């Protein structure tokens, strides 16, 4: 009987294939599946969110304007401006065939960045800087009508639904569920898809035509904003320096005002001028 310990092959218990290659292949495979699932979930929840009745959305949100801090300005005619905006909004909304339960509430907020957006519950916010920059009532009406169109199309709640499913996928993948709520609230402000923006533009133009008989002044909104951002960036504001999507928008809106004669149908001035505060 002999006792020996010949050398055993240890590779039997350790697989030879490159760990990095296998890892990358797995990552690619799992990544593709996750992306596909996320895309399907996003589309489904965006669509499903629109089915929630507006009255429920409004009841849930109440008076809260989600996605932005409403900063009351120190200007004395802040209330007057807000009233003006609200009445302009109401007049436009009346021509846009909103469902009965849908009411739009406009908020005027102090901010250095020109912005206007629609959020949950029919709340629309307009910043003081945007208000100050608008050259005519027609331009202002374009802005308001555009936001009303977003509310009418239920874009805010659709964005929230889509964002919620993306946040869910993200939380499942990364294992973190702590900071979802502020993430979600911020998503509403991020903006809508190109298609949604285009649809809102078209509806706003139609509202302008109904109210003023023409779409003059609509393009000026984006021209002014482009000039403003160009001036801030320090570069010479030219038509070509705008974002290509904005350039296309300006072109579309200018075309929508074809046949408008400014001398025969001048743009209406802003009833309550905004001040530099």
């Amino acid at each position: 009987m002999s006792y020996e310990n010949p050398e055993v092959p240890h590779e039997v218990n350790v697989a030879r294939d490159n760990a990095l290659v296998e890892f990358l292949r797995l990552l690619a495979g799992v990544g593709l599946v996750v992306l596909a699932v996320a895309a399907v979930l996003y589309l489904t929840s965006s669509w499903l969110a629109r089915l929630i009745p507006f009255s429920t959305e409004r009841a849930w949100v109440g008076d809260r304007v989600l996605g932005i801090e409403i900063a009351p300005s120190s200007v004395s005619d802040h209330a007057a401006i807000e009233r003006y905006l609200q009445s302009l909004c109401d007049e436009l909304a009346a021509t846009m065939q909103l469902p009965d339960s849908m009411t739009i509430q406009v908020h005027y907020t102090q901010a250095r960045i020109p912005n206007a957006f629609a959020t949950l519950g029919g709340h629309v916010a307009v910043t003081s800087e945007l208000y100050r920059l608008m050259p005519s009532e027609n331009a202002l009406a374009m802005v308001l009508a555009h936001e009303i169109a977003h509310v009418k199309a239920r874009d805010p709640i659709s964005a929230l639904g889509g964002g919620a499913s993306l946040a869910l996928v993200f939380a499942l993948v990364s294992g973190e569920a702590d900071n979802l709520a502020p993430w979600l609230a911020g998503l509403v402000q991020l903006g809508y898809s190109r298609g949604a923006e285009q649809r809102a533009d078209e509806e706003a133009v139609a509202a302008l035509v109904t109210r003023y008989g023409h779409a003059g002044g609509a393009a000026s909104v984006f021209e002014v904003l482009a000039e403003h951002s160009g001036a801030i960036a320090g570069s010479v504001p030219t038509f070509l320096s705008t974002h290509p999507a904005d350039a296309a928008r300006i072109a579309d809106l200018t075309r929508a005002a074809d046949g408008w004669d400014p001398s025969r149908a001048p743009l209406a001035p802003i009833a309550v001028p905004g001040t530099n505060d």
Partner: protein
Amino acid sequence: MELTTLETVPGKTITRHLGLVQGSTVRSKHAGKDFLAGLKNFVGGELKSYTALLNESRNEAIERMVAQAKAVGANAIVNIRFSTSNIAAGAAEVMAYGTAVVVG
């Protein structure tokens, strides 16, 4: 290759003792079956998917141990023992080890 948990192979004599051989494998069930097994926690009973998983693992561990034994020229493995341990990522390691011998 003769496999036994005894000290000897019954009916044969050991002529050469060739030392320790081991085979081990780590396997994991996929997330779907894991989730279903988690649900089964409510009603209890056999987790068929895990039983199957560990059976596969044990067979593979034995195969690897046999491969090591063959490489050192053995024709039997005696005193086979198993050891199972839980690996954090929802997987289990099964190890089989024994002494490789030549029986005549």
